[in-house]
């Protein structure tokens, strides 16, 4: 194979699928991060394992659409449980999230162990949903994943105004007569959709990173919602392609974890170099302030106050 020629077929398929998922996950994840519900996606992703195993148990099939449908039902059930716990037990958000995450993941592991202990034929490999199997995506998978991703981005685009208001000023939105809880759940459900779609790309444990890290990184660069969405999507896409490239060049480098590491690298860059919010910019600003104070009468020792 000549390296200058077109990319290998499998690289193209995986890159297309993962780029779409990375972009959509970044866009959709923004509202989770802005609403301070970043971990909701984590609870949903851990719940999917039980859904994957149950779908296999009920249908005996192990094709991607069947398993992802099961994962989606489980993710929604997990989120419904989360809402119910918050509403009826007066448990705080973080504790309720932790409960749902732990219990649903435990259920998934128990079902999986039960399967392997009973020797259900063909159950081997279901645990791959824990870690993902990015490199093995086929064109049918890619089309399905890209389709759902595009739909999710479309929904966000159509509901941009409502979602923005609910994210920043729910009280005002409610005063305007909008069904705030409903919109809230819809946004969270959208995160669940992206978590499920991200499963084959990164696995249940890592997929949260795809809906959290790009939005957080994008938040460093801008204070406005639309640019943040676009940037988060782009960062997710770049991370996905970077992970695919690294995994295609280096043998024995799994694709899913590499994507997450690439996203983390982008976050690190954003954290240090973003204007205004970035570490360097703030340092420069503080030094500036200190210099001005030094020029005056006060000499407070705050040159490296922000560490």
């Amino acid at each position: 194979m000549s390296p200058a020629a077109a990319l290998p077929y499998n690289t193209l398929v995986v890159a297309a699928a993962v780029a779409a998922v990375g972009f959509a996950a970044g866009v959709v994840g923004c509202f989770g991060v802005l609403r301070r519900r970043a971990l909701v996606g984590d609870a949903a992703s851990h719940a999917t394992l039980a859904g994957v195993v149950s779908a296999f148990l009920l249908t005996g099939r192990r094709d991607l659409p069947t398993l992802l449908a099961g994962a989606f039902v489980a993710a929604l059930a997990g989120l419904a449980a989360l809402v119910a716990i918050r509403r009826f037990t007066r448990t705080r958000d973080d504790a309720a999230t932790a409960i749902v995450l732990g219990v649903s993941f435990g259920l998934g592991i128990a079902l999986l162990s039960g399967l392997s202990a009973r020797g259900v034929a063909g159950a081997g490999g279901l645990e791959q949903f824990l870690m993902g199997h990015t490199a093995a995506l086929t064109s049918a998978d890619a089309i399905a994943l890209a389709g759902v991703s595009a739909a999710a981005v479309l929904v966000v685009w159509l509901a941009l105004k409502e979602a923005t208001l609910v994210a920043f000023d729910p009280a005002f939105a409610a005063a305007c007569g909008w069904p705030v809880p409903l919109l809230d759940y819809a946004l969270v459900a959208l995160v669940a959709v992206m978590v499920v779609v991200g499963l084959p790309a990164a696995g249940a444990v890592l997929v949260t990173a795809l809906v959290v890290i790009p939005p957080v990184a994008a938040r460093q660069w801008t204070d406005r919602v639309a640019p943040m969405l676009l940037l988060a999507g782009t960062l997710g896409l770049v991370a996905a392609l970077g992970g695919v490239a690294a995994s295609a060049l280096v043998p024995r480098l799994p694709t899913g974890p590499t994507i997450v590491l690439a996203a983390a690298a982008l976050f690190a860059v954003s954290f240090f170099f973003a204007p205004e919010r970035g570490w360097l910019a703030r340092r420069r600003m503080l030094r500036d302030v200190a210099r001005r104070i030094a020029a005056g009468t006060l000499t407070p020792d705050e040159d490296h106050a922000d560490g």
Partner: protein
Amino acid sequence: MYFGLSKTAWGARLLSAFAAAIACSAGVAPGGDGPRVVATTTVVADLVRQVAGDRVTVDALMGPGIDPHSYKATPRDADRLARADLVVASGLHLEGKLGELLDRLGRRTRVVAVAETLPRDRLLEVAPGLYDPHVWFDARLWSGCAPAVAEAVAAADADGAETFRQRARDYAARLVALDDELRARIATIPAERRVLVTAHDAFRYFGRAYGIDVVGVQGTSTESEAGLADINRLVDLIVARKLPAVFVETSVSDRNVEALREGARARGQPVTLGGRLYSDSLGGPGSGGETLEAVLRANVEAIVSGLAGGR
């Protein structure tokens, strides 16, 4: 995965409890004919049955179609292990998560890891001090495990010692004859197509013994995830050697193999799915793959018909 360790520890704790309970009631040992042997995998259980015959009851911990690399012990397993007179394992870390439990068990019950009785220089080293555990795919090498089983069973049933040794010799001879037969069958595949592409590297002893290149998408263990570079490299190989078939295994996911087929098809090399190979477990009752001998023959026939035929 997360809970593997803690689960094993939990199982081991339960196991100690059970073992203590049994030690207390040792005077009223339950009846039954002959020693009870628990084997970890179906492959090992077959070996014990071949050597020990009807004089012992053999029970396999993992049923057909189960992947021993990722198997997690249940409390019931700990119970079965604790009640056994003899535990026969495959060894060389094949029983990944079960290994710790077996180590602890070894203090109370006799545990024999058959593959670890083989001479080290006949094993394939995958990393310093770490050996490929899939030795049963080399029939001649596997025949070397029979004496250790005979001696272990003899220690539990001294009256049968001579029978066991004789049966072990007979079985080893059968495996050696089978070994020649398999080599002759593989030799009928055109030399440039003697490449076995499959999901994980379980067949390296097989490849070494019978003269066929073996390439797996995943590593030796099923726990690792394949990278894109591995997939691309294999697609290149399939196209370059014009391989008409790739193979999936009974106990491993086939997603990677599907990706390979699609990649090769896109580059003008149609690849059929050459039937499921038995890898880390034998077949269930009625599958035609109940014994290792049957499984080796079935695998070789699947490989020969996949690679020798057609274009």
